[in-house]
């Protein structure tokens, strides 16, 4: 774990000096005002939002997989992101004048209700099949997504919607990213609750037998997921499949002990998003590839690989 942490810190520091505007550590030490402005208004906020978004979304995926005992459940494959987008859109239509906090709150309500609905459906599906469940979740997400598109067309909000569709860190500047800080204490709570999530994943009866309040644990978990997803969609935009592939890769190598792999998942999530973002910044310099596209390609590709590899019984 230590070596990954070191790698992350080194890369993070290096990423601060990658961008269209030339910026070197020497200028900063010399106290160049323009350099400091670029650094403080653009580069640092960007790095912070990358780190927070990458790690918190990955942790969300891990929590959902633990609670549902299914490796292919994540904010993307359970439709949480789609619900959050619908919530944002509804808040823009119904409460156009409201501030970003109110909008985020409405998105949280939608994301929470939608994910809860999905989990309830999961409970009622008699024969659990690791493949069937993400399939249903993706379909749910699709339907919610088309309702969102329908509304967006009707109220002429397609443009704002596409901003939530594709994640993009190039717009993360001072004043736009601060809401992401909400996710930090949530990650800490997730760490504290880790063992309880594991027990809740064993099912309602087992958990109750072991003296854990099943309902409240599940709700806590889903609430964390809903808040993180809503905040992420509102500020950065969607990073598809991130919450699915990072926890899967981590648990493949480090096992399933939630409390142990949770920090690792956070580090890997941040590392993955950071690398993708830096790649996007250099690939067609001086232009940028939005990170949603890069993560989308890698994410769906890795998901395919995981599907084929982790479901050998079907192949």
């Amino acid at each position: 774990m230590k070596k990954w942490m070191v790698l992350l810190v080194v890369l993070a520091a290096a990423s601060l000096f990658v961008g269209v505007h030339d910026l070197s550590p020497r200028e900063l030490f010399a106290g160049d005002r323009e350099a400091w402005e670029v650094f403080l208004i653009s580069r640092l906020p960007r790095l912070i939002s990358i780190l927070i978004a990458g790690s918190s979304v990955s942790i969300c995926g891990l929590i959902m997989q633990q609670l549902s005992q299914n490796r292919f459940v994540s904010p993307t494959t359970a439709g949480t992101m789609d619900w959050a987008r619908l919530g944002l859109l509804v808040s823009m239509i119904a409460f156009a004048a409201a501030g970003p906090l109110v909008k985020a709150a409405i998105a949280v309500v939608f994301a929470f209700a939608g994910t809860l609905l999905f989990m309830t459906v999961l409970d009622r599906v008699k024969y659990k099949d690791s493949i069937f469940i993400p399939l249903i979740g993706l379909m749910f997400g699709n339907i919610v997504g088309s309702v969102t598109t329908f509304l967006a067309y009707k109220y002429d909000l397609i443009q704002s919607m596409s901003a939530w569709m594709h994640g993009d860190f190039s717009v993360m500047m001072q004043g736009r990213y601060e809401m992401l800080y909400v996710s930090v204490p949530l990650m800490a709570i997730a760490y504290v609750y880790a063992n309880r999530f594991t027990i809740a994943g064993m099912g309602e009866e087992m958990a109750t037998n072991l003296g854990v309040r099943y309902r409240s644990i599940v709700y806590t978990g889903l609430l964390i997921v809903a808040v993180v997803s809503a905040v992420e969609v509102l500020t950065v935009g969607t990073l598809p499949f991130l919450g699915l592939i990072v926890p899967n890769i981590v648990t493949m190598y480090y096992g399933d002990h939630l409390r142990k792999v949770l920090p690792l998942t956070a580090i890997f999530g941040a590392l993955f998003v950071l690398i993708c973002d830096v790649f996007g910044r250099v690939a067609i310099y001086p232009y940028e590839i939005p990170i949603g596209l890069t993560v989308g390609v890698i994410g769906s590709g890795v998901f395919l690989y995981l599907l084929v590899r982790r479901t050998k019984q079907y192949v």
Partner: protein
Amino acid sequence: MSNRMKVVVLVVLALGLIVLFLFAHLRGDFDYVLRSRSEKIVAMVLVGWAGAVSTVLFQTMTNNRILTPSIIGLDSVYMLVQTAVVFLFGSTTLTMMGNTLHFLLSAGSMIGFSVLLYSFLFHREGQNLYFILLVGMILGTFFQSLTSFMQYLIDPNEFSIIQDRMFASINNIKTDLLWPAGLLIAAATLYTYRHLHELDVLSLGKDHAINLGVAYETVVKRLLMIVAVLVSVSTALVGPIMFFGLIVANVAYAFFQTYEHRYLLAGAALFGIIALVGGQLVVERVFTFSTTLSVIVNMVGGVYFLYLLLKERKAW
């Protein structure tokens, strides 16, 4: 009502809608309005036909009623191939070679690509249906992301312009492709018409079909090529409509209650035309363009698809 009668009813209904679409609220410059409307109608008829026929053929081949070419991502493959052609040859070459050549080139490569995809998904017998569905859907997402990625690389400044110029949607029909598209569809339909009986036998399943003397591998490979061509045509004309084929084909199965492809194919194609023309009428007249047909189709189709999945599972 006999099946023949049902087909007649559908033909009448389709013609009625077409006439309505052409002549409703006719005002202004008649010449211009009628020409633009008839181009639209021809495109919708072609797409309805191609989408429905390709779905029924594909479902007969794979022996199920949930998988469709667009659900396993074939139309995303077309978009990818189309973008890759521009990517490899450069966007100036594209403008020089014109839409038709570009279309034929893409449709050609699409055939090879879909054979690959098919053998990847169905390479072993008894493959779990849900596995194929999920992998197909994710493959679709993968191809879509790859497509946008490449478009971005081609020209980050003109991302949306490229998208508009290259990709069709129902309100942005590529009318200059009508001729080549029509010819391809006609050829595919003729081929299918001459092999109707083989299709009836195929729907009994692979083993029975082989027992009854169908050269299974060859027939399936040819059908797959036909499907690939039809999907290319409809995607090139109006863009992908994910659940269109699923709805139309299943409505046709329920309406005709038969295994004879003579009726199934004709019926599905007619339903396809009715759905597109009727749907577009509703979008234009009722919603006054405040939405698009593909959004509605995806909403209805998504719900229906979910219903099919859960029903199949008898989960409730």
